[in-house]
């Protein structure tokens, strides 16, 4: 694109972000403040992830962008176009083919490899924000690893509901030191973060924080011995590819309670269909769903 540098950001900004990224990798799970720039997309729409991707991306990379697990959601399309336009890089929807995957709200079903980097868009990097709104105070709590209040909050859920009632952005402990927000991925995806072979980078543009999880790093979802962490998914099979282990979206098909469950990870679903897997292709009734 004329008049703009490769991948939009100027080199000085990239250096600043790169320095922050290296510190983030060196201190797994710690939020590193950075001089987040104003981007041509709104804050809250992936500006942190975009800045991280722009600082990491090279001409030889192949980029995949997903939102809600899908390559074709409007915001994913918009961000993929942004990089195709400003960096001229190859883009793909194939998880296996990508060298960099920018994501909002999902981790792909297919296990990522050592030669891949996943960049998460993060709206709220501070896992303690719902308990303590002051960032000056939460910074102090991280410094002292003072995370008792989060355990109390989870335990209150157990007392009230019988189990922890957080279903997404479920807090994790990284490298047994930092409490970290995994971004609003469903808790179903949390276990994928543990000992992941790929490097995981997190960018929060509006809140001006970058953090990271190196490959093969211990990442535990907070829990209690008598109430171990467990994941949930809709107890159905994908109507398109028949998968019984993927995370499913629920699509409402009529106003009588009819619905269809399909893979949230569209690439996973399509490649399974290409391999010959099929689902019923039909909606199910309310009774069957419940």
């Amino acid at each position, binding site marked *: 694109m004329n008049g703009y540098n490769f991948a939009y950001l100027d080199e000085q900004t990239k250096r600043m972000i790169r320095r922050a990224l290296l510190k983030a990798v060196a201190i797994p799970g710690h939020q590193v403040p950075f001089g987040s720039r104003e*981007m041509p997309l*709104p804050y809250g729409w992936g500006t942190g992830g975009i800045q991280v991707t722009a600082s990491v991306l090279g001409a030889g990379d192949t980029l995949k962008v997903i*939102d809600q697990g899908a390559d074709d959601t409007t*915001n994913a*399309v*918009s961000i993929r176009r942004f990089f195709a336009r400003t960096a001229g890089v190859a883009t793909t929807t194939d998880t296996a083919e990508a060298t960099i995957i920018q994501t909002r*709200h999902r981790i792909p079903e297919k296990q990522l490899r050592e030669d891949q980097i996943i960049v998460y868009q993060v709206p709220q990097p501070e896992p303690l924000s719902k308990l303590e709104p002051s960032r000056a105070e939460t910074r102090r709590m991280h410094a002292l690893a003072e995370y008792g209040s989060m355990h109390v909050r989870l335990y209150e859920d157990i007392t009230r509901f019988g189990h922890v009632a957080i279903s997404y952005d479920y807090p994790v402990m990284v490298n047994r030191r930092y409490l970290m927000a995994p971004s609003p991925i469903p808790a179903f995806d949390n276990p994928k973060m543990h000992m992941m072979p790929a490097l995981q980078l997190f960018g929060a543009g509006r809140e001006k*924080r970058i953090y990271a999880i190196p490959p093969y790093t211990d990442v535990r979802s907070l829990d209690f011995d008598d109430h171990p962490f467990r994941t949930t998914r809709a107890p159905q099979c994908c109507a398109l590819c028949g998968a019984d282990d993927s995370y499913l979206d629920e699509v409402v*098909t009529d106003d009588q309670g009819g619905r269809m469950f399909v893979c949230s990870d569209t690439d996973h679903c399509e490649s399974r269909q290409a391999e010959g897997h099929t689902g019923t292709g039909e*909606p199910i009734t309310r009774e069957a769903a419940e």
Partner: protein
Amino acid sequence: MAYVAVKGGERAIDNAHAWLAEDRRGDPSVPEISLAQIQQQLGRSVDRVMAEGSLYDPHLAALAVKQAQGDIIEAAFLLRAYRTTLPRFAYATPVDTAAMQIRRRISAVYKDLPGGQVLGPTYDYTHRLLDFALAAEGHPPAPAATAPAEAATMPRVSDILRGEDLIEPDGDPNPPAEPGDLTREPLAFPAGRDVRLQALARGDEGFLLAMGYSTQRGWGGTHPFVGEIRVGECAVEITPPELGFAIDIGDITLTECQMVNQFKGSKTKPPQFTRGYGLVFGHAERKAMGMALVDRAMRHDEFAEEPNAPAQNVEFVVYHSDNIEGTGFVEHLKLPHYVDFQSELETIRRMRREAEANAASLKEAAE
């Protein structure tokens, strides 16, 4: 398969943009508005976009207003996103508002003063009656009467008070070597007055108005008097290292508000009035006044005041004054969140099943 639209995002975006362009233009039988018209006739919008967009360029601000269909926050966002790509050639020396070419200058604390009260182009004493003559276009107003300025320079009211030692000194006695820059360095606490004022100068006019208003209603009151509001043109100077002296690179319109606030003193220090300061691009009195009120409220720690009101909470004010950040995050709720919602659905269904089973077993036990 028709239930699951997995393709079509690209086309949808293209079509939406085409429709937006059509909507922006409106009825093509109505003449298209020009940037010169916006700049000349919607000047207060242009000023606000420059202030909140944090870039002084009336022409580009007019373009942003046009492109955003008059949506001021959207226009400020366009300007910000452009600003961030600009290289920095030099840093200006502080502008001297005492040397301002005054268009308007009023003080509420003196009846008259050197340089006089200059009412200037103000809405203050207009009666808010819709002027139907304006609807009938084509009649330029008669030229306004002019009078020679009463004095070549107009001393700041705060300098007059300062001469009697009645008001605290201006600014930090030990200023940082370089003022902070929120656009390069992330905010850290405690935040100095330099970055706080920067945040307010870029901040949302409505937010500053509400925060300033809240201090008047007792939420962190500061007993404000408008020492002075001045509006006019100020020269901007830079000192290129190769020249070693300052050169004038142009004029910008500024609005400055100096609030004179509640006095402070102690057994050892005679009482002095305190200051709240506002400085904004363009003609923007409401914002400059709100800024000055909030600036003074946030200085509670300097005067050992108990911080118990929203306007005194530096972290709250500074983090939430930026309408570009605010609009982005509020509006991002429009983005799909169905993966998260699905996880909530699973959780709530499970919890309801458990609650129903519990109720059933309790009922059974009772029977």
